[in-house]
Structures are given as C-alpha cells and as structure tokens.
C-alpha cells in the first residue's frame, strides 16, 4: 500500500532536483577548497555525481513504483531490510538537519543577528512540515515557480556583477595540486550532487518511471552548470578571496552597484538560499517521515510529521558547535560519511536484486 497518493511528472522531477541540488549550495560554494579552480572541481564532481545518479536510478527503474524502504524489504527480507532502511532514513534525517543548520547559521550571521536561531529554525520547519503534509505533488508544483525565480536571480546577479569580473583571476588554471582537486571534486560529487540519492524515496511517484533517469540527469546537469557559472563568477570577482569567505556568492552580490541606485542586491542571494533550502529540507524531511511510516507499517505518515520535525530542529541546533566545525565536516568527513548511503546501499541492493532475479513476477512483489 502506498502512503503517497500524488504523482509528479518527469519535468517536475527535474525541476525539483534542480531546487534540491541548489539547496544550500547556491550560497555555500561547493568545491571551495580548490580555490579559483573550484569550477573544475564542480565539473569533475558533476561527472561523479552522474555516476551516483546512474546507480540509484538503475535501482529505481528495476523496482518501478517502489521506494527504497520497500525495495530493501524485498531484497534483504523484512529484518535486515528494515535495518538498512533505518540507516538510510538516518542519513536523510541528518541531511535535513545539516541544511537546517546551514540555513539558520546564515540567517543569524548575515541577516538577523539579534534573532534567536531557534526562532528561524521553528519557522522554516513549520513551512516544511506544511509542504510535507500536503505531499510530493505540492512540493513539485512549488518548485516550478521558485526554481525558475532562483535561476533568474543567478543570471540577474551575474549580469550585474559582470563589470567587476576579472577573468585573469581564474589563472593559472589547474594551479591546485591534483590530489586536492580530486578530493574537492569528490566532495562536490557527494555534496550536493550525490545527495540526490534522497530521491530514491520520491522516484516511486513519477508518472512515467521509464523516463525518470533522463529527468534526474537533466536536473543534475542543469544544476551543475548553474553552480559552475556561480563558481566562475565568484572567482572572477573575488579572486583568491573567494576561497576564504564563508558565503562567497553573498559577498559577490554585495559588489553590485549600478549607478549608486541599484545596490544591496545581496538580499536576493539570501532569498535564493531561503527558497532552495526549503526544497532540500522538505525532500529530506519527506523521505524521513515516509520511510519511517513504511518501516513501522503505518497507514499515514502525517501523524509523525511534527515530532520528526522537532527532532530535526533539535539536531540542527546541537549537531555542531560552530561554523568552522561545520565546514570541516563538509570538507573532510562528509565525502567519506556519505559513501555508504549514496553509493554502497544502492549499488549492493541493485547487484543483489540482479543476482536474486528480483523482482519476481507474482508472489514476492506486493
């Protein structure tokens, strides 16, 4: 029995993935450790991200109309399947809390320094809870409006900041040591591209599942290209300083000054983070509550939305002590931490399903 009645089109899936990948990465620059070569790290990370997407879309296509929790039950059996599902649900829950943390940290540092973090966390969580309660269809429809707006803002910012761009800031190309570049490209593959593995809880609700892989790929590639443009823009405007700032896109937009009339447009970048962060948190939140409802065999995921939201807020409040620890985790721990969830679980499940010739027609496939 499906707990989600809604269906989304492949186009909506692509747009939702773009919004999800933008998430926090529109403002927290991926590949920042590679300095002015960040755009190369993102381009390489995009290729690895597409490989990760190939694995999880292969699994979703193999078990059409099933979420990862249902797939795990079929492949590993009830007990082991639920154990692996809970590990994956933890990853989604933790991902949501990390984005929430980034979100509130940015708002506290740049926009509302006098407002308690807990207040911004509760407010965004209520908005996300409302969207999750209404289901994946509503989330997908919201994405059509908000993602278009965000892409427009990125183009608008880039055009306005063009007079301050110095392309020689991108030279020399490949200055960063190859090992460091590859590490940063892997970090970029896991955050933000590989995070799209969360869609293993969503792909079951696509109306034409046979075309879902191309929709996922389109979403990832478009998001990747926009992130490359953002990285080139930031490096061209800020030079070596791009690697030092916590929020380089925000600082870049601050440079915009059109005839002393159009200034302080960096708030538009903040709006980008607020809207795109909403999608990333909501998809992770949705996957968490839907997954838990399936593991515990509930008739609806709605009763656990608010308690899980509260737990996510508590984790977001306490998961790191300061911004430096968060960035240290993003650059060092996260690229390793996510390997089991983004690569190992989908890949091993897919291989086992092929070996066991699952799904079998008839009995086993409910």
């Amino acid at each position, binding site marked *: 029995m499906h707990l989600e009645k809604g269906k989304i089109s492949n186009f909506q899936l692509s747009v939702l993935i773009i919004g999800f990948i933008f998430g926090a990465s529109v403002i927290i620059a991926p590949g920042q450790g590679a300095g002015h070569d960040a755009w190369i790290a993102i381009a390489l990370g995009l290729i690895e991200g597409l490989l990760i997407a190939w694995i999880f879309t292969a699994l979703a296509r193999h078990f059409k109309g099933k979420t990862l929790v249902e797939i795990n039950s079929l492949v590993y059996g009830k007990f082991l399947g639920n154990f692996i599902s809970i590990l994956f649900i933890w990853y989604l829950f933790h991902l949501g809390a990390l984005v929430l943390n980034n979100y509130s940290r940015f708002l506290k540092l740049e926009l509302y320094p006098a407002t308690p973090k807990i207040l911004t966390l509760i407010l965004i969580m209520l908005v996300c809870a409302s969207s999750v309660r209404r289901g994946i269809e509503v989330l997908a429809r919201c994405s059509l409006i908000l993602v278009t707006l965000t892409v427009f803002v990125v183009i608008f910012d880039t055009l306005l900041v063009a007079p301050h761009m110095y392309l020689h800031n991108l030279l020399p190309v490949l200055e960063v040591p190859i090992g460091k570049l590859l590490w940063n490209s892997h970090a970029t593959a896991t955050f933000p591209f590989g995070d799209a593995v969360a869609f293993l809880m969503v792909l079951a609700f696509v109306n034409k599942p046979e075309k879902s892989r191309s929709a996922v790929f389109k979403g990832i590639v478009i998001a990747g290209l926009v992130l490359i443009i953002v990285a080139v823009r930031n490096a061209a405007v800020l030079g070596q300083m791009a690697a030092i700032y916590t929020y380089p896109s925000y600082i870049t937009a601050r440079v915009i000054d059109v005839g002393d009339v159009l200034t302080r447009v960096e708030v538009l970048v903040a709006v980008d983070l607020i809207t795109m962060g909403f999608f990333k948190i909501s998809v992770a939140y949705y996957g968490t509550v839907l997954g838990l409802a399936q593991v515990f065999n509930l008739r609806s995921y709605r009763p656990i939305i608010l308690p899980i939201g509260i737990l996510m807020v508590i984790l977001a409040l*306490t998961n790191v002590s300061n911004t430096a*620890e968060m960035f*240290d985790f993003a650059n060092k721990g996260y690229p390793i931490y996510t390997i089991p969830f983004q690569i190992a679980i989908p890949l091993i499940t897919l291989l086992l399903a092929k070996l066991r010739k699952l799904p079998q027609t008839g009995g086993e496939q409910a």
Partner: protein
Amino acid sequence: MSALVLIGFGAIALIQIPGLVRKQWWRELICFTVFWSLGLVLAVILSMGIKLPPLTTIINETITGILKI
C-alpha cells in the same frame, strides 16, 4: 523557557492525539508518542541549558581520526 516548550508540545499533542484515537489508529498513536516523548525530553534538556553532544562533530572526528585525514 521550559514552560514555553511544555506549552508547544502540549499544543502538538492536542492537535494530533484526538484524531488518532477517534480513528483508532493505535500503531500511529504509539509511533507519534515515542517520537513526541523523545522530542519533549531533548527539548526540556536544552531549555534547561544542558548541552547535548554535537553528533556531527563526533561523526567528523571519528572519520578523520580513523582515516587520518
């Protein structure tokens, strides 16, 4: 602060529990109660100014410690 937490959690319980009891969704009620109680305990601890261990930092230190990154 603790009073605010209790009021908030009380409001959530008042919104959710009557509907679940009316529908006799006992399994959903148990799940809700478990997560709600866990949230309540952690929120009260935080509101009393007691610090919870930073999970992400612990995960990061474990990974970087093992792999010597």
